């Protein structure tokens, strides 16, 4: 079940002792808390399992994932944010498996942000399960073994004769049983075993099952609390009229009319750090959101937009086109591509263009903050609670434990809510007004301020010989996200991310290749967007694979198979052929495929097209395969693949963010159109079964969609699409 975490009580004590921890969690006095102590932050190889008691003795703080109290109440903590991808279900599902409790009997809460205590909490890179599942399994098993040991000691029997199930320990020979709640006091005194046996996969009762999500009931009756729904006592609302140009400043403003709007309390200038830069605006603080919106309309602001370029989209892409002629930074190379290109032979070259995009989470950005002299509290839709904590601690010169970061549910994240700009701005405003505040972003704020997914150009060149790839070169020109992120990144450092998404197994068979990037300079703020660089890279790589296959006179799937040795990738492609009926496809139907290697998983898709009665190509069906290795909840994985395809569809054929005079053009959903229910075709998802390590599930299925679609269009019409987005009606 889900219930909102109550507002934590006021306290200036530092640290979260076990007793305090229990109080915060609403547990009764004696409790068994089990978790990890990371001696070196973020380094799970030295993580040590401790109980709350043990941690208190050592004077360290516990990373608690599990708490069982005397009444048998079990709380499992989700250390990552829940933005739709399912951590609120999958993290407890892993813990409950080894702990031997029924999921319907536990309460799930969000852990607070704490730098390093849970390893990384940044919910990005599809990393929740793949980074933590082994720790989670071991945590559950350790607590279970301690409870079993406590029961065995209590009965004076051998531990080997006891087992746990459904929140109880049983003694096999006698049939005696004891509930976990009656064992926690004894169990909490036991030193956690160093080694515990983990279940074999065949013995799993929960993992591998499509159990219904624990967060869904609250999301269907209005009780789930998203950031925008969060209130704290005494809270005011603020909105900020920010300079529409990223690097612009506030020259002056006249607040007279804004202050006259009923409910408006204060109007002042505010600066917000964005990466290595700051964004300026004028904050309006009021008793309610609508008053803020009204006051913003009558604010008079003069901006200072001097000292930086005011680019438009075509100017940006012209610059990228010029950059594409440069050699760039070599990311990876083998042999001598330049020489074989000079020698001639069967050559092929193509340029691909991908657009800038807005994240446009359905929940616009927002953050509740309460700045106090010696502590800061933050609540909100936050993807990186540990990042927010360390950012605020550093900025306000506080100890990390004096910065309390609480995650609400996120109405979408997609990378945008991993930045710490909106959280810092909220704290700045709270500090200025000396009151708790919720800073609300309008849809227009959210859509125009960025950061955006950067658009990019790719030039791919190949030399073919004997029906195979002899040489391959790929060069990306586009904004390097790292360069804005921190001054420690330099423009002459190769951007290894330009190869993300590529199935690198291809390279084993290619004697000559070179991958390079040219970072295009631009003041447009850019950052991660679902599947990050793979979301654009893979369009170039997998479209070009298709072009090379056709140039070589080969079937696109067979051509890929000829360049892949890896059994795992081959198995995935074989499955894709099987479910899509690739070998039996008939004329009149367009079939295109693409694959990706993204965030620890392999994905492949086939798009099947058919012309409608007006001759317009329409997607009949998308066949998707994901190999994410060890997995928890297949229905959530299927949902993520379906969602990734729908978001990829938007970026391929529906929306694009344009810039004009240095400002984002599309401000709301009337111009930044979204895929609608009637646009989405049938999607069939297949999950590969194997013994591999866990991979990501939230993003890896996005990259193959656009190239598979365009490859299918070529198959159906003979027309090659190299620029995204495009309209199906125009093909």
């Amino acid at each position, binding site marked *: 079940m889900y219930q909102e975490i109550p507002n934590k009580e006021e306290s200036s004590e530092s640290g979260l002792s076990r007793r305090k921890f229990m109080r915060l969690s609403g547990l009764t006095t004696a409790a068994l808390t089990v978790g990890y102590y990371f001696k070196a932050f973020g380094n799970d190889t030295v993580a040590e399992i401790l109980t709350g008691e043990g941690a208190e003795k050592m004077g360290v703080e516990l990373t608690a994932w599990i708490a069982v109290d005397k009444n048998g109440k079990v709380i499992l903590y989700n250390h990552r944010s*829940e933005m739709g991808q399912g951590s609120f279900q999958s993290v407890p599902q892993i813990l409950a498996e080894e702990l031997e409790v029924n999921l319907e009997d536990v309460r799930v809460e969000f852990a607070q942000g704490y730098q390093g205590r849970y390893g990384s909490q940044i919910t990005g890179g599809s990393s929740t399960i793949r980074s933590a599942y082994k720790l989670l399994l071991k945590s559950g098993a350790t607590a279970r073994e301690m409870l079993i040991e406590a029961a065995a000691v209590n009965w004076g029997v051998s531990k080997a004769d006891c087992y746990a199930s459904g929140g109880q320990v049983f003694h096999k020979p006698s049939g005696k049983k004891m509930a976990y709640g009656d064992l926690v006091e004894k169990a909490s005194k036991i030193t956690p075993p160093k080694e515990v046996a983990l279940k074999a996969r065949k013995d799993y009762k929960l993992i591998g099952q499509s159990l219904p999500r624990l967060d869904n009931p609250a999301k269907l009756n209005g009780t789930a609390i998203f950031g*925008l729904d969060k209130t704290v006592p005494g809270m005011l609302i603020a909105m900020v009229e920010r300079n529409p140009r990223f690097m612009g400043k506030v020259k002056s403003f006249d607040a007279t009319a804004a202050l006259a709007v009923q409910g408006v309390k204060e109007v002042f200038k505010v600066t917000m750090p964005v990466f290595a830069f700051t964004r300026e605006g004028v904050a309006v603080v009021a008793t309610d959101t*609508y008053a803020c919106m009204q006051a913003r309309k009558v604010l008079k602001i003069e901006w200072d937009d001097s000292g930086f370029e005011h680019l438009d989209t075509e100017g940006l892409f012209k610059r990228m086109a010029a950059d594409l002629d440069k050699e760039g930074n070599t990311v990876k190379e083998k042999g001598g591509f330049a020489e074989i290109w000079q020698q001639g032979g069967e050559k092929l070259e193509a340029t691909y263009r991908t657009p800038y995009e807005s994240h446009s989470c*359905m929940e616009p950005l927002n953050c509740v903050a309460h700045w106090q002299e010696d502590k800061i509290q933050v609540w909100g839709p936050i993807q990186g609670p540990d990042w927010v904590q360390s950012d605020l601690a550093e900025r306000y010169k506080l100890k990390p434990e004096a910065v309390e970061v609480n995650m609400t549910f996120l109405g979408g994240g997609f990378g945008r809510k991993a930045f710490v700009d909106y959280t810092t701005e909220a704290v700045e405003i709270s500090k200025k007004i000396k009151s708790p505040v919720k800073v609300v972003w309008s849809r227009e704020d959210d859509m125009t301020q960025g950061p955006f997914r950067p658009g990019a150009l790719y030039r791919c060149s190949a030399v073919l010989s004997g029906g195979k790839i002899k040489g391959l070169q790929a060069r990306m020109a586009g904004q390097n996200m790292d360069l804005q992120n921190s001054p420690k990144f330099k423009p002459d450092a190769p951007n290894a991310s330009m190869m993300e998404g590529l199935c690198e197994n291809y390279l084993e068979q290619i004697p000559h290749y070179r991958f390079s990037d040219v970072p295009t300079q631009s003041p447009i703020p850019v950052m991660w967007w679902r599947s990050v660089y793979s979301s654009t890279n893979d369009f170039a790589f997998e479209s070009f694979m298709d072009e090379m296959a056709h140039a070589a006179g080969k079937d696109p799937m067979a051509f890929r198979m000829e360049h892949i040795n890896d059994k795992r990738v081959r198995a995935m492609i074989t499955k894709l052929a099987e479910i899509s009926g690739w070998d039996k496809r008939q004329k009149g139907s367009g079939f295109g495929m693409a694959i990706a290697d993204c965030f620890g998983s392999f994905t492949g898709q086939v798009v099947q097209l058919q012309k409608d009665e007006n001759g317009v190509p329409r997607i009949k069906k998308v066949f998707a395969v994901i190999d994410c290795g060890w997995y928890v909840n297949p229905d959530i994985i299927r949902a993520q693949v379906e969602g990734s395809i*729908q*978001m990829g569809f938007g970026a391929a054929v529906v929306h694009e963010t344009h810039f004009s005079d240095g400002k984002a053009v599309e401000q709301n959903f*009337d111009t930044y159109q979204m895929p609608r229910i009637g646009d989405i075709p049938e999607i069939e998802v297949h999950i590969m079964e194997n013994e591999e390590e866990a991979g990501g599930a939230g993003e890896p299925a996005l990259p193959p969609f656009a190239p598979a679609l365009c490859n299918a269009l070529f198959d159906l019409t003979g027309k090659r699409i190299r620029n995204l987005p495009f309209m199906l009606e125009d093909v």
Partner: protein
Amino acid sequence: MPTYNLTINGKNYPVEAAAQTPLLWVLRDLLGMTGTKYGCGIAQCGACTVHFNGSPVRSCSVAVSAASRAKITTVEGLSPDNGHPVQKAWIAEQVPQCGYCQSGQMMAAAALLRTNPNPADEDITVALQGHICRCGTYTRIHKAVKTAAEIMRQG
């Protein structure tokens, strides 16, 4: 400021607000009913959909002064224990991901099913075309509307 007597989910709520205040912000900020979501403010996304005398409307674009004459139903009024056929169907098909748009999606579905208990695919598309889901739950929403119709038929 004038006072308006709103009838929401069968209960009476007097609220003091400027006449042009959108119903959305009255619900969310003044009455604390946060199940109805803000998504765009210009009637493009459907996240703020409520029933106005049984018909789906965008509460971001209905002034409180107009709402005082109507019976308003919000997602909280569908059924607090998720017993409405639409809520049951949304659970059965495991529709929500982030969940933010689902209040609006469900309000649209509930309104459709009241007037059209056996909707064809095309009817579902038309009724829900005005609702954006960024996570990509459209295929499941479509299926869930059919499931809800089935649940209603079985009573």
